[in-house]
């Protein structure tokens, strides 16, 4: 049974006003337990609206959201349950920090869950560890942290709720390459050590290619296609058409292939490319 699924999910903003727009239209998806799924789409394609339905922040205009097979809008309690079971980390999450100390801010979610003091403490320490925040930072004011640290503190605030599904909306937006890799790697490590389901929303194909197992492509409020990274990237033309791009490394290898070199064209990460080049030069492939 999928951990989250939607059927015919539709959301209309500003109904009965002249500004009416359908942000998502008839989207049906399934996300399996423990999966690492990427959602990609151009700015304004509706991907943020889609994920805000998965934990009951937005109520669908039509269609249903199922969490572990149960409709989350069944009653008031089930919506609140969904909030804790599906952790949603918004874009630029550092703007949600408000407490006097980083510790208190990370503890906000677990506290709302009504956990015991001891359990909260355990979770905060653990979450800070996941995101690589030193213990000395926990007593600082969140506003004294650097940009990257703030972002990680905010992500820890969601992780501390220990959601079964963690959804991150553009967690790397506005970060430099090093900060970006750091965040993506910690998310990967988090998933591996907790075994939770992770959904990564991004418009950067590079991010998605390196980490996720399956990609959902959202375009013009609809689910355009879904499949493995290979499936999606093999439709490079379509991606370009959508204003998205294949990773740079893929382009390099396509050009090499075009020049008549005997290399594969379906290379999506630097690592794969490196190994392919080693193979091309007849060297040992490092694992």
């Amino acid at each position, binding site marked *: 049974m999928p951990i989250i699924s939607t059927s015919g999910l539709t959301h209309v903003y500003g109904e009965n*006003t002249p500004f009416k727009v359908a942000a998502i239209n008839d989207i049906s998806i399934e996300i399996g337990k423990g999966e690492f799924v990427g959602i990609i789409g151009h700015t304004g394609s509706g991907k943020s609206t889609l994920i805000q339905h998965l934990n009951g922040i937005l109520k669908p205009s039509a269609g249903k959201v199922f969490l572990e097979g149960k409709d989350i809008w069944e009653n008031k309690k089930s919506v609140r349950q969904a909030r804790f079971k599906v952790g949603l980390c918004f874009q630029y999450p550092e703007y949600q920090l408000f407490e006097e100390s980083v510790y208190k801010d990370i503890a906000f979610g677990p506290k709302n869950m009504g956990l015991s003091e001891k359990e909260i403490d355990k979770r905060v320490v653990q979450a800070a560890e996941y995101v690589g925040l030193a213990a000395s930072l926990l007593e600082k004011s969140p506003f004294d942290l650097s940009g990257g640290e703030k972002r990680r503190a905010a992500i820890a605030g969601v992780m501390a709720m220990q959601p079964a599904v963690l959804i991150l909306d553009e967690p790397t937006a506005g970060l430099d390459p090093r900060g970006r890799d750091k965040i993506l790697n910690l998310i990967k490590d988090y998933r591996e050590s907790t075994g939770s389901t992770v959904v990564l929303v991004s418009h950067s194909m590079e991010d998605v290619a390196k980490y996720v197992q399956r990609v959902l492509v959202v375009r013009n409020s609809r689910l355009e296609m879904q499949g493995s990274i290979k499936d999606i990237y093999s439709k490079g033309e379509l991606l370009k058409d959508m204003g998205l791009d294949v990773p740079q490394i893929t382009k390099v290898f396509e050009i090499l292939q075009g020049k008549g070199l005997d290399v594969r064209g379906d290379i999506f990460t630097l690592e794969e490319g490196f190994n392919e080049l080693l193979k091309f030069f007849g060297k040992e492939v490092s694992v």
Partner: protein
Amino acid sequence: MIRDITIGRYFPGNSLLHRLDPRMKTLVVFAMIIMLFLCKNFYSLGLMALVIFILSLISKVPLKMLLKSLKPLIFIVIFTAVLNIFYTQGGQELFKFWIFKVSDKGIYTAVFMATRIILLVTVSSLLTYTTTPTSLTDALEKLMSPLKVFKIEVHTIAMMMTLALRFIPTLIEEIDRIMNAQKARGADWESGSLISRAKALIPILVPLFISSFRRAYELAFAMECRCYTGGQGRTRMKQMKMRFPDFSTAAFALLLFSAIILLNLNFVGVI
């Protein structure tokens, strides 16, 4: 929820009301507000109601939108009405319980006051619905310009109003986003005691203040980068010009004013 706020919201359109000079519109609406306060009986108030109703038809703003702008004031309207029912002295007593007496005059006053508030809100929302915030503040700047004599920085005040209006939707969006982010962490401000509800607002207000200051700094930098130095020597791209419809509107307002005075005189003693 928060998106329902309609104060200062513009409704795009091309009706006669939309095309009028914003200065004239502001003046006439101001005059109509005064007239509403001058109304002494149901005849003059009825005439105002009729005129405002016709104006809203002309504006082509959907009735639903207009009603929506009244929604936040329902409480005030009801409060005033109830207060007036019980506190009006004299008149014929209709019924009585405990220490409260309800007279026909009380009910009369209550309905009168409620209608007046509703009309006040409707006529002023008609102005904001049919005028873009920028042209409204431009108009205010022009109308207030005589105050410069008293060393009042009219331009600065107008610019502050423009900026404030400009940032209302941005802030609403921001509040929406922060609320959602905290909701995702289980924040709950819809249940619990009044104190715990008030406390639950802290996670929204703190980030909101911080981002407002950040925005203000950024905006000030951006304005300075574009050589903004205040109002001195500034010219306008869009020049406002009074045309025939504007003068007819003025004439109509004068006519309406005399009608109100006449109706007030003829039927004194109704209220």
